[in-house]
């Protein structure tokens, strides 16, 4: 039975303060996207000011540099989508192997993989750069996607989900019924760890979507930029003297760039919650 919690006024107040604290920056972003650069500095930051420049900002955003913003948006979708799908598959298969099969040096290998979670991504930048350089993949989509496919934390999570969600007894029963190993993995196993797939996929998607450092280092052409890099370059060039500042346009771009994440969380969050909870109970 779920007991209905009742909050004391002080708890209410605390929660309200934290909510406001979390939402204020977002609110600022929303009011700012209606302004032009002059209003940004001359009017109160947390309220709208007339006249509205939203349409003008939208137009600038999608037409500046021959409409390259749309290209960046598409690039981000490609990078994050491919990374999420790919790393879910790699993690699901590798996690399955660690969960269901016995092989030489299994414990050692798993510990090694876990240890790589601790390696900060900045330390990997130079080796990744060199790898891409030697294989001739610098300044291609692959340079951003390939490094993201290997996701040790995803593998670890998937192993937990396989351990908890797909009992060995079920596997053996399927084998007795004559199911092939392929069928067992694809048709029987995967649907049972759906929560895990969504969880790992969301993590990978958010990570790749927000990734700034990797594309900064391995991509040179502005047609290959993701949103993070493109908006940052606009922000920098806009701040340099002699340039027309377009801060409010960039703010609008930033808001648009988080929309896909919001959508992903709202539509997939249900699975994720369920997945986390089932893992917690059974694990």
């Amino acid at each position, binding site marked *: 039975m779920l007991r209905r919690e009742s909050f004391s006024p002080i708890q209410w107040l605390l929660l309200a303060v934290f909510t406001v604290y979390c939402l204020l920056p977002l609110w600022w972003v929303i009011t700012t996207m209606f302004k032009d650069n002059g209003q940004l500095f001359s009017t109160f930051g947390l309220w709208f000011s007339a006249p509205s420049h939203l349409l003008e900002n939208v137009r600038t955003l999608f037409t500046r540099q021959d409409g390259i913003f749309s290209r960046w948006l598409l690039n981000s979708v490609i990078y994050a989508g491919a990374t999420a799908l790919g790393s879910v598959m790699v993690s699901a298969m590798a996690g399955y192997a660690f969960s269901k099969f016995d092989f030489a040096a299994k414990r050692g290998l798993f510990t090694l993989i876990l240890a790589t979670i601790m390696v900060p991504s900045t330390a990997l930048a*130079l080796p990744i750069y060199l790898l891409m350089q030697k294989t001739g993949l610098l300044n291609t989509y692959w340079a951003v996607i390939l490094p993201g496919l290997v996701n040790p934390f995803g593998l670890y999570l998937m192993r937990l989900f396989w351990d908890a969600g797909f009992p060995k007894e079920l596997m053996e029963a399927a084998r007795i019924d004559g199911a092939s190993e392929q069928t067992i993995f694809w048709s029987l196993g995967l649907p049972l760890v759906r929560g895990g797939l969504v969880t790992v996929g969301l993590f990978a998607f958010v990570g790749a979507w927000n990734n700034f450092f990797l594309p*900064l280092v391995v991509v040179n052409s502005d047609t290959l930029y993701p949103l993070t890099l493109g908006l940052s370059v*606009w922000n920098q060039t806009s701040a340099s003297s002699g*340039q027309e500042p377009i801060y409010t346009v960039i703010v609008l771009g930033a808001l648009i760039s988080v929309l896909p994440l919001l959508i992903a969380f709202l539509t997939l969050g249900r699975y994720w919650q369920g997945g986390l909870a089932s893992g917690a109970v059974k694990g």
Partner: protein
Amino acid sequence: MKKAALYVTLALGLSALSVSYAADPAFPKAEAGKKVTLEVWSWVPGLDKTVASFTKAYPDINIKILNLGGGPATYTKLQTALKAGSGAPDVAQIEYGFLPSFADTGGLADLSKYGAGDYKKYFVPWTWGQVSPEGKAVYAIPQDTGPFAMVYRSDVLTKYGVTVPKTWAQYASAASAVNQKSAGKVKLGNFYATFAPWFMALAWADGGQFFKRDGDGWVQTLNNASAKKVLNYWNDMIKKGDVSTIGAFSADYWNATGAGTVASNFEAAWGPGGYAGSMKDKSAGLWRAAALPQWTAGSAIKSGNWGGSSNVVTTQSKNPKEATLFALWLNLSGTAITENWNNGGLFPASSAGLGLPALNDTSKNPSKFFGGQNISAVYAQASKGVNVNFQWAPWFPFANDNYNKQIDLMIKGKLTPDQALDAWQAETLANAKKEGYTVR
């Protein structure tokens, strides 16, 4: 009659052309028939247009530009490529203060090998000191500069009966007069508490030196005598309330200057463009520029510098000769300097560049915002008075951050100016040693 006028115009135009061509030094010859492509990383606005003029003169050299907007991200990318030993551009833009940390990677070509030393005489002397600190290797070609001068609201100064101060003593008494007469509402000056380079430029003008190469190691003197003199001077005015401490480039600051409650400041040559752009109509035409006040009355104008950048050639470049040629052309040809000024407000390091018509056009901003005064002339004079012997160190970024902490404590009254500078020196020194530098 009409024809004669046309001829006169033509003749004038031609002579103007020949004058601007005469101002260009003879650049190194490009190898005939050798087709090369140079990759250039720069954040100079409108560089693509400038480059079009270059390729017209040198059709065999193709230029590919990558603009990442400057700042830490650009430097990270460049550092990675230099350390990896491949993928770096032929030419890159680097600010003076960051040159030593890039020179330390060994990834910057010594341009004296490609004849750059012959062009030293065409640059304002101090800029060459920045790119060739020991006078031997040349790590870069100077590009733009930020010599210091004073900007002030002529209307506010007139209102409070203050003449333009020529010495720091006059500036301090003027600041206290304005504060008293306005009952504290108007401040003559403002101390930028979070910009170490602003403070360092003021100490630089007094001959202050913060870093110096010493054999294979370094000497760091953040608490040098000039620094102490300058900081004590400002702290006295801050304590008396004669100057404000509003953050640079903030909305508060532009509101104060626009309304005339902050009536003067000390800005680099790129600063006035920001004044014109940020205040727009407010106080337009009321500003003027003057030489930096001096410590000794009647002395020659001495100044410091804040900002500016240079063009390096990397050791990874397969065409270092052509890359050097491009870097020289970009910063010495009248065409390029004019375009860089018009598109990005780059105040040139070239001596001849300071006299170009575009810089001295008083009908356009920033001079227009300054009441049509030729402020480039003020800044050109300032640039000639910048001390040549001023060096940076690879760990300057740390010093830059640590400064804010010490100055904050000073303004809160927890440290005296001397203590703040001593702490700045000690903490930065400890960190530099921890990073493995031989420094004392």
